């Protein structure tokens, strides 16, 4: 019990720190929304007079009071689940805007991360079990894909698979002309079809790390005494591989997986840019380039919460999988 209480106390402090940083960082950035709006309006040929600045200042409201007062308001609003109004999407609530983008990112990047992890761990395990087999040759290939800059890999795949051989669509989350979002077979099919290529690039570019890590852990675990004991007992090799070697070898990868799950929500700004995917990465990009503080704070908050939550879950699970972490020294 004490183990879990300690963990929870730690996460409460981490949460407070994240929330506070989240409040401070946007305020340290240069520029203010009214100026940005005026330069955008001027570029679109809208009339700008002294009255315009005044009208925008009234319409956008903006923060008032001392920084402490703003901090107090921010915390109170946060507790009410109120993240404020997004300036770029004025007068829409930040929660609505994030709510629109979040499912796409979680589905795409989340599934791709899980697939990449499972494939990488599985292949790594086999490669470690049968050292010197053809699987070992796969490792340099996958690490090469990981070393290639991601945007470059993605752009090449886009060029080849959507332009040269047009198998996949080049942009969007689903086919907007033939279906509408909902729990219908045609929508889900379309979403999978549109998400396949972006997911493929994420898997290709991240599988190498999982595979290499798992293979090497597997190799060192296999030299442990308890493996020798298990083999000497005459256990089925499969049982030795799975319950004795793999279960222990996967532990370090699992904590890495927790962290990467947390970052799923941060999305992959580059993936979403290259594939025009309507997720949270694009949202964050738009928010930052428009000085939309409320939206930035909202996105950062969701990211920090999900990283913390993923870590908490894995910490707890880790205690179950590996009893050693629970024991007091």
């Amino acid at each position: 019990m004490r183990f879990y209480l300690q963990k929870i106390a730690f996460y409460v402090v981490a949460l407070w720190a994240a929330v506070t940083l989240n409040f401070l960082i946007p305020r340290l950035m240069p520029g203010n929304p009214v100026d940005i709006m005026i330069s955008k309006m001027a570029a679109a040929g809208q009339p700008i007079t002294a009255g315009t600045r005044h009208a925008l200042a009234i319409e956008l409201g903006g923060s008032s009071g001392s920084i402490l007062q703003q901090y107090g308001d921010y915390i109170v609003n946060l507790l009410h689940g109120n993240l404020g109004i997004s300036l770029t999407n004025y007068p829409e609530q930040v929660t609505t805007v994030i709510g629109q983008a979040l499912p796409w990112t979680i589905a795409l990047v989340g599934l791709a991360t899980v697939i990449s992890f499972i494939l990488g761990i599985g292949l790594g395990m086999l490669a470690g079990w049968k050292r010197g087999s053809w699987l070992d040759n796969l490792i340099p290939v996958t690490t090469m894909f990981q070393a290639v800059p991601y945007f470059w890999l993605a752009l090449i795949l886009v060029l080849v698979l959507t332009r040269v051989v047009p198998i996949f669509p080049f942009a969007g989350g689903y086919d907007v002309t033939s279906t509408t979002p909902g729990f219908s077979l045609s929508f889900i099919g379309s979403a999978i079809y549109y998400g396949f290529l972006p997911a493929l690039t994420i898997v290709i570019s991240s599988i190498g790390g999982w595979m290499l890590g798992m293979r090497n852990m597997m190799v060192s675990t296999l030299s442990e005494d308890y493996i020798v004991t298990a083999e000497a007992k005459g256990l089925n090799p499969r049982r030795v591989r799975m319950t004795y070697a793999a279960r222990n070898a996967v532990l370090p990868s699992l904590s890495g997986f927790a962290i990467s799950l947390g970052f799923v929500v941060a999305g992959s700004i580059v993936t979403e840019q290259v594939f025009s995917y309507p997720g949270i990465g694009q949202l964050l990009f738009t928010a930052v380039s428009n000085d939309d503080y409320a939206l930035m704070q909202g996105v950062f908050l969701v990211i920090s919460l999900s990283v913390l939550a993923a870590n908490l879950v894995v910490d707890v699970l880790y205690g179950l999988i590996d009893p050693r972490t629970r024991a007091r020294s």
Partner: protein
Amino acid sequence: MSPRSTRRRLGVALVAVAAAATLALSGCSSNSTSTSSSGTTSITMFTGQVGNFTENFNPLNNTGAYLPQTNGAIYEPLFYYNKARAGKPVPLLGTSYSWNSDGTQLTVKVRQGVKWSNGKPETADDVVYSLNLISNNAALNTSGVKWVAKKTADDTVVITFPTTSFTLEPQVLGNEPIVPESIWKKISDPTKVTNTEPVGTGPYMLKSFTPQSYVLEKNPHYWGTGASAPKVDQVRTISLANADAATSALQAGKTDYMGAFLPTLKNIMAKNKNLSYSNSPQATTALFTCENAALGCTGPQTDVAVRQAMYYAMDRTQLDKQAAAGFSAPASPSLVLNTVNKAQITSPKYMEVPQKANVAKAKKLLEADGWKLGSNGYYAKDGQELDLSINVVSGWTDYDTICQLLQGQFKAAGIKLTVNQMAQNAWTQSESTGKFQMSMNSVNMGVSSDPYFQYNNYLSTSATAPVGQPAKSTNTSRYSNPSVDAAIKKLATTNDDSVKQAAYKTIQDQIVKDMPYVPVYVNSALAEYNNTRATGWPTQSNQYAFPLPWGGNWGMGIVLKTIRPVK
């Protein structure tokens, strides 16, 4: 749980996923190319928006957060002012208008028989309501002038201004949406609604909305007939992340109407015969200089000879070719467009900036002002080297290219140029508050093609502020010249063309001499069209409306009702 069962389950799951994926693939690839269902004609637009759309059809919103078709396609103003060419405003909900002699009363004849998209009649009362709604709401009234509209007959509305207000004409008649009183009077704060069920008088109305695409359909109650009635049944809007995706979409025939700068446009057009484009250069790209030492500017650019030398040291042919892919148009030192505003340029000398560099002249100007060429190839005066810095937004590739090329071109004239690439926020802020030497930006047209707007917004003392405070309008150069101020004031208070012409001459004589903004070229504004599903798009020679599908461009509505489906 035994390891064996785990593995088996995993295997089954993988097979299931693979099967689902193949099914989905085979199922979708067959219908992904299908166009609209038979019978309805449809086009697809890309308006430059990235990510998810937020449902907002509030035409009164100043922040530009409404979806671009709101103003133009769904809501209409009284008249349409075409910025792409000079000419009389096009009557929409108004049919004619006249000013009284001192410019304080504007009488508008209102079109009769117009209906809202919900079938209810639109009347002069709605016009009065809409105009007063804006005038009385400080958050909506961007002009800062309070007018009063009154109905004097069923088809007549008189708008009274506190002072002479000829220059407000395009704003009031051409930039204020007319909204139904019956709906908007129930809304307590018109700035804070998203108006997701828009009811307007425009040629199109909302059919369906999802965050990734929305569809407008023909308004069955539209007042226009024949050529001015909408003919394409549906208009769909999609979002794409960047110019690469836009290029792909255009070539793949996935968009019919978009406005994006595509450097390879000529190539794309040559390869795809069904595509066409138009270029409506509007914004004069210029080196904005913080020129006024009296208001706190510092640096060599406060010296008029330096600004003049830069004007002559530029090789604009090279800039056009390499930064604008040959799509820019020659600028005029008068800062107005020599295409649209040719009649208002008062001297043939002000018609066009020199296209080739004249290094000898630039050097002569500097030497006459006391600058001495140093051994390192750069000029200096009183121990200070002629070293200028220019701010540019990193990622605005055309501007970044201009700055890099200028470094070389200015070096030949003995001027050292340092380029500061910065984020847009920082760039906007330093320019607005005057904390810069030079800034790469553009002089934009106002709400109509009347040069008054450029001159008032970029040159008048009332549009600027001392360094350290944000400029009240866009006069970030801190330019302040009493004779220019007087001439701008004259422009605002007269409707007499000969008086206006004299004022233009005063202003142009002064700014060509003072050069607060050093013009480079008139930036391209490219719109691309696909002619397979619809024709009648604007062409280079027939720009019946300013075509770029941007929010706030009422011309988009004119384009959408003019095009016709290909049978």
